[in-house]
């Protein structure tokens, strides 16, 4: 089998790609997609660890399932937020959404 470290490196790389997307993309939907990439990287990690460390107990799988749930919830709420922002401002460029500034 392919060794564990390969999976970990793949996952780390995917995570960092996602990270870059979150930091650098202008469009909010793209940011959301990047977040999904990061979550997937985490899931890959969990499943890989499960396979190589505790294959008899479904610990990693269970957590991966929970991550899946969180991802689904996040996508739904995030996209709803983006939609409602789009309705108000007619754009979703993250840089210009600076309401946090006083």
């Amino acid at each position, binding site marked *: 089998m392919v060794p564990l470290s390969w999976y970990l490196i793949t996952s780390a790389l995917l995570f960092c790609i996602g*990270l870059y997307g*979150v*930091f*650098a993309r202008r469009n909010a939907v793209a*940011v959301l997609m990047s977040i999904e990439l990061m979550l997937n990287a985490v899931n890959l990690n969990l499943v890989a660890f499960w396979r190589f460390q505790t294959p008899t107990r479904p610990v990693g799988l269970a957590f991966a399932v929970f991550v899946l749930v969180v991802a689904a919830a996040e996508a739904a709420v995030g996209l709803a937020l983006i939609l409602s922002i789009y309705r108000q401002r007619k754009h979703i460029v*993250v*840089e210009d*959404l*600076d*309401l*946090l*500034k*006083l």
Partner: protein
Amino acid sequence: MDRELLNLLPILVPIPPLAAFFLIVLFTNRVRWLSHTIAVLATIISLGFGVVLLVNGLSMGAHDLAHHPIGNTIEWLPIDGFSNWLQMGAMTDPLTMGMLFFVPTAIFCIIFYSIGYMGYGTEHEDRDYSRFFAFLSLFAAGMFTLVVADNLLLLFVGWEVMGLCSYLLIGFWYDKNYDDPDKTTPRQAAVKAFITTRIGDVIMLLGIAYLYTQTGTLSFAAILRDEQVLHQLATTLVPGMGISIAGLIGLLLFAGTVGKSAQFPLHVWLPDAMEGPTPVSAMIHSAAMVSAGVYMIVRMFPLLSAGWEHGGPPTAPMVAMGLIGAFTALFASTIALAQNDVKRVLAYSTIAQLGYMVAALGIGAYIAAAFHLITHAFFKALLFLGSGSIIHGMEHGAHHANDHHTDAQDMLNMGGLRTKMPWTFWTFLIGGLALSGLPLVTAGFWSKDEILAESFYAMTHGAGGLAPLGAWVFILLAVSAALTAFYTMRQIGLIFWGKPRTKLSKHAHESSWTMILPLVILAFFAITAGWMGIPDDFMGLELGEINFFHHFAGASLVVHPEGITFNWIPLLTSVFVVLLGLGGGYLIYWKEPVKAGEPDPLVKPLGRLYTVLHNKYYFDEFYQAAFVEPTKWVAAKVVYEWMDRGIIDGILHFVGRTTGGIATYVRLFDVHVINGGVDWLKDRFLDGAREFRTIQAGKIQEYMWLSLLIGCAFAYLLIFVLSR
């Protein structure tokens, strides 16, 4: 269904009505149709559980069931610092099985009947319609808890829940007042019922506590099925009293029954309980409240009779039960002769029939008592619901005739309802005949006959004190049976025979189908329920093992009670007294029906005695003078004037003034020191915040990568610099 799931079922039986109570009270209080739907559904679910249990129990066989009751127990309360646990749980043994069939059936009929009785969908719909169903559900939950309980404590919980519910339901029309100031109002009746039964309950609680100190457990299985424990309790004497521990506990527990099952001298609450709506009366009289008392002593019978052998000298509680039970039976029957309120007659007949059961236990006829409990529940529920239907019809008549002063419950105002309310008439007739014990056909005959046969056997074969006790029971019960048949005929004659005596009965009409259907169901059982207890050797015939109830319920005891051999004398006595009573009633009330305005035909021959009977031997007046008035005096003078106003109020006022003085000084400290300090701190914080706010640019992504950059920097610092 597998055993593990099955074991969960008993404890589930009380849950649906309990849930229904909370649902109705909390959520559906304003939605009437939903309220009664929930209540009826809950009962049906409980009935379903009961039937599932019954089917499974029957398939297991009585013997297996008795030794391995269905049910489970959890550890509930730690005692002695977690070393020992008070067990709580539910179980179903053969005796419970019998109860689990008839209790839900009767309760279902009653709740279903209430839909019609409380006037759903008509202009007579009750103001507190939902509340009624909530309380009925709670009542049912209490009774189910009591039935499935596997220990005295849980049984007592159900017992007390029912006490509360009877209070709430008897006083259901709490704002009702009568023109006649002497007439008991629902409020007073409720309080009376609550306090009277409380006397018994307190004594019973003493008995439970004493039992617990002696055995260290309250579980039925641990006490009643353990011959060693029973023997120990029966042979050890209570210090200072010439009576065994089991005897004393038995007497104390029996006191609870005296209160709950309205035995002499605590019977006074039951007739007054008629002030509640009729379904409540039916509930109290058949399936729930009073049955609970008898069920408890039937359940505890091995303890009550500990040390007694079949035919041997009776134990102290048995003597008490025999004496009180038989006396109550006769006593109540005589009162019932001279009552005119349709429900009160039934109330006194209930007291008498409960006396039957208690007396049967007194002579050791355990199964006969249980059997009579079941048959009685059916026909008494039938009679009460029937009387409710009659009253309903009469009130309709009152409405129609616009006459609201004539008492709709007075039998002398009725008459001739036979043709107006045919369904009610026929079902009521069946119930009445079952109550009188019409030979061979009705359920009442078989159970009464068994009690009489048992007491005759005790009279002839009993050793020690059992023979005279048996004689006492046999004779009093036989007389009572004759009286029962007589006043039943009187009642039916007055209500249904002859011509209508008032406008009310002239315009009465049949009730709705929701009220008729339960009557029919109950009438069916009022006849057939007796067939499961026909003696094996009835009339000397070899009928095989047809006495199903004896064999099934008898398995609950450690020693299976042997059936007595058949004897013609009690059978003939029982047939004779019944026919005598029925015949007498027929001659006096049916042949020449009472006409309007005429007094009761009994008034003339009985004379003064009639007045005494009509006033119930002046028991209420005696209790009023002996107990109620002195208590009131103490409450008003000693407790209120002296203790409350003088001592307690004085101390409170002193404390209040002192505290007020201190508080003035505390306030000064608060204003200057604490408030001032906090204000200063706030100003400093504001200054700081003003300095720092310039850092924020408002771009999330910038924040994110900045923070991660710092995090990375720290991580590299940790790895490459600090770890070297």
